[in-house]
């Protein structure tokens, strides 16, 4: 399962943080700081994978008190981290061994592609100002720590539908224009 999604800028400031299991705020921040210190010390043109067990600790093992036998194979407890660096932002996914690293790397790609479609030339500021929309997008891609959708067109469709319905159900206008739109005027 995916344990957390972090988006932070190259200064180490978090932009989007989403933990799929509960982490106290202080712990979250410790983790973010640690992740950042690892990421910024990594050279360019190295792999996008980092062993994150020292930061996030081993994943929780499933416990099965109701089973009358001991399961032979338990999920191996480890945390892996995959990141991708775009312009001023780091996109970081933390997950356990039930996911594939390369696939996660592509999931980051899906996320960023969707953002890009949504905001046209997405930049850091779009993310800052459209907090709830970004979360809506993320929720359409990852749900409860599992991959929900991997096609950015589908995600866009879902998000647009939400936006439409939200607009219809209430007079409140959701932020639909992007910063870049506005800038291009």
């Amino acid at each position, binding site marked *: *399962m995916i344990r957390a999604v972090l988006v932070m800028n190259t200064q180490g*400031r*978090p932009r*989007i943080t*989403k933990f799929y299991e*509960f982490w*106290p*705020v202080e712990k*979250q921040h410790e983790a973010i700081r640690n992740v950042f210190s690892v990421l910024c010390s*990594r*050279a360019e*043109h190295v*792999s*996008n*994978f980092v062993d994150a*067990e*020292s930061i996030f600790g081993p994943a929780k093992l*499933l416990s*099965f008190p*109701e*089973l009358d036998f001991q*399961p*032979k*194979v338990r999920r*191996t407890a*480890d945390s892996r981290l995959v990141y991708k660096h775009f312009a*001023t932002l780091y996109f970081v996914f933390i997950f356990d*061994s*039930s996911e*594939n*690293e*390369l*696939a996660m*790397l*592509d999931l980051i790609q*899906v996320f960023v592609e969707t953002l890009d479609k949504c905001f046209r030339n997405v*930049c850091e*500021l779009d993310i*800052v*100002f459209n*907090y*709830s929309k970004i979360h*809506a997008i993320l*929720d359409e891609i990852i*749900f*409860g*720590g*599992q991959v*929900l*959708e*991997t*096609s950015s067109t589908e995600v866009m469709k879902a998000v647009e539908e939400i936006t439409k319905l*939200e607009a219809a*159900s*209430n007079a*409140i206008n*959701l*932020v639909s224009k992007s*910063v870049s739109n*506005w800038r291009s005027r």
Partner: protein
Amino acid sequence: MEQLKTIGRELAMGSQGGFGQSKEFLDLVKSIGEARSKAEEDRIVLREIETLKRRLLEPDIPKRKMKEYIIRLLYVEMLGHDASFGYIHAVKMTHDDALPLKRTGYLAVTLFLSDDHDLIILIVNTIQKDLRSDNYLVVCAALNAVCKLINDETIPAVLPQVVELLGHSKEAVRKKAVMALHRFYQKSPGAVSHLVSNFRKRLCDNDPGVMGASLCPLFDLVTIDAKSYKDLVSSFVSILKQVAERRLPKSYDYHQMPAPFIQVKLLKILALLGSGDKQASESMYTVLGDIIRKSDSSTNIGNAVLYECICCVASIHPNPKLLESAADVIAKFLKSDSHNLKYMGIDALGRLIKLSPQIAEQHQLAVIDCLEDPDDTLKRKTFELLYKMTKSSNVEVIVDRMVDYMISISDDHYKTYIASRCVELAEQFAPSNHWFIQTMNKVFEHAGDLVNIKVAHNLMRLIAEGFGEDDDATDSQLRSSAVESYLRIIGEPKLPSMFLQAYAISALMKIYAFEVAAGRKVDMLPECQSFIEELLASHSTDLQQRAYELQAVVGLDAQAVQAILPRDTRCEEIEVDKDLSFLNGYVDQAIEKGAQPYIAEDERNGMGNVSNLRSQDQHESIQHGLRFEAYELPKPPMQSKVDPVSSTDVVPVPEALSYRETHPISSVGSTSEAGSSELKLRLDGVQKKWGRPTYSTPTSSTTNSPSEKPANGASHVDSATASYSKSRDSQNTKKTEIDPEKQKLAASLFGGSSQPERRSSTGHKASRSSGGAADGSRGSKAVEKTIQQPPPPDLLDFSDEPTVTSALPSVDPFKQLEGLLDSSMSSTTNHNAGTATIAPDIMSLYGDSTASQDSLDIFHGLSTEPTGATSGETTVTTLPQSVKGPNAKDALEKDALVRQMGVNPTSQNPNLFRDLLG
């Protein structure tokens, strides 16, 4: 940053925020963006918190404003400050009827609250209501919240609704309901165990997305108990086949790959189901081979699927053909320029190496390159691989590299890890005692406080009690060398740990005791003298005590020392008089004098006092003795099958020592454990003779090494012992041949740093050419072995399926040949026809599934067709069979059969043509 600043400036100059946010919020973001330091940022955020606190207290906040406040609260919390004062407003917002507000409310509570937060109780009701809503977006928002906020206490409150949603008309809702149920299962398996069958049912949902979602929970279920899901193997295989053959709607394609995420999940599940199950594995061979052949290795996601295929091939019952193609893929990964692919390649190599150790040899240089790589992640992965490859022949190089790396890093977590790996390898494979001690010294010197305490215990005992060799002289020689090495460490400016000091003095104590007891005169070295004096004034009372004891012991005569520290009693039982009957007289006397009678420990109810503690100590030391076997001597890994090639290495070892050797072989884990408990019993007196209760270690440590086995080791546990012994056989034969090469490599590794790369390659070449002939013969022998080793049924014996092969005896081979020559055309038409006819088929089946409800049957039905094809095609692709009996007619028949089954043409298969030509 630059971008942010310019925009910030524009914003400051410009409008009142054209984005629905107020000027305040824009200012906040801007000022945070421009903050120069963490302190400044904190100040800004704290001011913002004050503002929000004030604002939230105002009466009648318009909803739109409120929404913004909530977002600002989220922002504050994201920046690391406490926003708990506003949680209640987020909770209130979930009650709102307007969709945007409700969604914002849910977003906020999922980010703010833990599943045992007090406020959850206020939300459960709303969630219940929203799960029943007509608006599917409301339902989705509620489901999202459910995943994060519901714990085992609140699951029953929402469970009925979630289960109901499994049949919702919108597939997006069904998908999310499956995932929510999965989350419940992860959090509290007991609460939903009766609903597990739902996941099976959803596997046949007519929406492939819902089917994909159900794979996640099924993966978890299979991980726990593969046996109960063996019946799904054929379903999984047929789904995978359909996915791989692009029978899913185009919208599931990703980078021209058909539903890769579903493929990855399926492959993971199949890997678990096929592990140690030959029958199940055989049904997977065809589809695995197809996917490996078809996957596009130019995209990331294609490689992800390929990697999962390798993992699956390595986990299931081995098939030589598939292993070969997996090895090819690994070669591609390792040769790639991408670090990511190298990483995956190294990982995959580690998985495959147990099954076919000879692959590692081809990639030695690539592996060495990865070890030299500046990328830490890659380096660590490579160490992981080396750990798996370690044998007594290469242990020195590997452990030395590991120690070097350990010294170079500062990450304590990983340091601990790699130190434990070093110790483990050194204990298992040490070529000589001297090397062992030196290595341990290095490890302790650089990671002293991070090493498990029992390691030091074992080392101490080893030195104190000899190495299990008959020759006393070597023992004492080694002891003196050990002492010298300790003295050298002591001489260094800073002793790394108290721990080491303690052991140094204990060692001195024991050695002097031996000397005194043997009646020799003891001259204390000045270094020792000063060390002891230092410790006499140590802050640690424990160290002080040891130092004083040593002083006292040295001053005693031989007989007294013999009595205190008797020699060679390691195997003697010390009987502990638990009842302390020798004190009875004294106790009676005391009671007569009016003392309180003794109250047993459990009656005292946790009244902590000294006698209580001591009895506990005693108890413990009886339960958990020290593990007392020495480290392993170089020896072939397999004890029962002693290989003639390497039998010269075998040194006769006493029984106690041999225990360690059986340890790494997981299949005999139970027996070795029994052995260890025996050992424990025998030994627990020893520590007490030194009067140090601190020596006792928990039993858990004795079984440490199997639990530290790498992740994929676990999946191999189940695999048949036959495959184990097979792979080990070939390992044995290989061991000797790798030796000189490794040595050369090692030399190149430790040679001049100016051009290590080039030298390593030339060194490699030289060794290759010199040992080329031998290598060649050995290699071919190994290959032969692997071909002969597996019993014929491994390769899908035809005799299992007599009806299939005899079905077409009258087909004219020449006609088939014509068809074959025209392969490109016929294959495309064939393929097209296949998809055309079958595609509607499957869609109708999907449609049926909801009506019939008897979901599994459908996939069983589907799978009957592919299984027939499976046997057909695999017979064509199995190499040894067709080589042994080159029969063109057979081959053609098989090919024809395959085509009739609608399987993709096997024109890729070179053997087919070899058959025809030969």
